[in-house]
């Protein structure tokens, strides 16, 4: 009865999976580049940003065209509007990964003031969140979306730990200040990525329940 519309929605789902895996790879690579001081890889991540922007535009166009042509209601409307909201956060995640890549390019030649312990942990948690939020959308999985929202505290706690540690280091040796600030920025970017994943998960909850942050918005 509505094969064309269903096909379009399937394509939208596929594109969301593609964009999702692109941003996941982007975060993974940017953290790997930082740890291994791999400038080439960092530059590759900066290059992903353009691909991610292109995907955002493509998905945006598809969603707007579906709104125009199908005037969707009910689950269709929630799904398409959720995709439209999600891609903004996904694109920002790409930006944040590229921002980390740029810092890596700058500091890769220096000796790090500390061994990176918390940052890889944060990266692991945020990648898990991003992956979870996109999976939750693709598989219409409410529980998974809720897990992402709950994981945010873990990332926030790690950020606070890193901040405290860096402040301590600056107290002891003012010379490490420049790099400490860079690491703080990197942690902040990761923490922001976690926030974007939470935003995505909250929209996934909306698409499944009609409620956004416990409010009926339609």
């Amino acid at each position: 009865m509505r094969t064309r519309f269903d096909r379009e929605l399937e394509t939208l789902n596929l594109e969301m999976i593609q964009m999702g895996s692109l941003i996941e790879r982007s975060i993974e690579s940017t953290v790997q580049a930082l740890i291994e001081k791999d400038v080439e890889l960092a530059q590759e991540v900066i290059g992903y940003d353009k691909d991610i922007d292109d995907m955002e535009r493509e998905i945006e166009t598809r969603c707007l065209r579906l709104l125009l042509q199908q005037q969707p209601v009910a689950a269709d409307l929630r799904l398409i509007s959720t995709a439209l909201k999600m891609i903004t956060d996904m694109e920002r995640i790409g930006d944040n990964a590229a921002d980390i890549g740029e810092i890596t390019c700058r500091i890769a030649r220096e000796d790090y003031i500390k061994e990176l312990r918390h940052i890889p942990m944060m990266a692991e948690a945020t990648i898990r969140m991003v992956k979870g939020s996109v999976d939750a959308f693709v598989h219409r999985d409410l529980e998974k979306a809720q897990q992402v929202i709950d994981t945010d505290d873990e990332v926030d706690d790690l950020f606070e730990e890193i901040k405290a540690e860096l402040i301590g280091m600056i107290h002891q040796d003012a010379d490490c200040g420049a790099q400490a600030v860079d690491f703080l920025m990197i942690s902040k970017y990761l923490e922001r990525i976690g926030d974007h994943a939470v935003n995505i998960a909250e929209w996934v909850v909306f698409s499944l329940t009609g409620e956004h942050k416990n409010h009926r918005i339609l």
Partner: protein
Amino acid sequence: MSEPIKFSIQDVNLYYGDFQALHHISLDVPQNSITAFIGPSGCGKSTMLKSLNRMNDLVEGCRIEGDILLDGVDVYRQMDAVELRRRVGMVFQKPNPFPMSIYDNIAYGPRTHGVKSRSQLDEIVEESLRAAAMWDEVKDRLKKSALGLSGGQQQRLCIARALSVKPEVLLMDEPTSALDPISTMKIEDLVLEIKKKYTIIIVTHNMQQATRISDRTAFFLHGEVVEYDDTANLFSMPKDKRTEDYITGRFG
């Protein structure tokens, strides 16, 4: 629902001979609201609408059980059909102006109900045409035939004619399905405007129209009401899978 109940439909069954067209319908229509009836063809929504002012009385073999109350009064047992139809007007899918002047179309109802004074009729005609947002369009040609009007104007004339006897409820059976988008928009604006004074029940096949103008929507299927809810709820988060499937175009 803060508004008082205008129509209360209580466990209504309706039969055309052996065929049961409505099954245990119960729903309350609040006053000064717009209620939309939606559903696939043959689902009973028009039958339900027509039962409200007893248009089915004229259909041979039609039998109705249950209660339909207008302001708490049983319309089948405690009310005269002519009085009921004055209080509950109707507008049909195809504009059906009488083959007479614009003025006489509007004056017809009030005359039937005994209004004779010329000045009083003039007043009713102007008031009704203004209410239907077409006074300025036709005030200089009131004596011209209503059949010369465009389809959209004819339909608004029919609304004006329905309003001329000062009804309380307006039943509309797909009132814009034969109209172009501009005329449709004018009728929708008009319906939203007159809702302040009247209670409106509209049958529509146009989902977007239901979402644009109605406060509540009832989804009919196979002679039953599957779901009746605030329109925003029904179209964003329907509770019943059959509602979801119908409004998203999976059947019907």
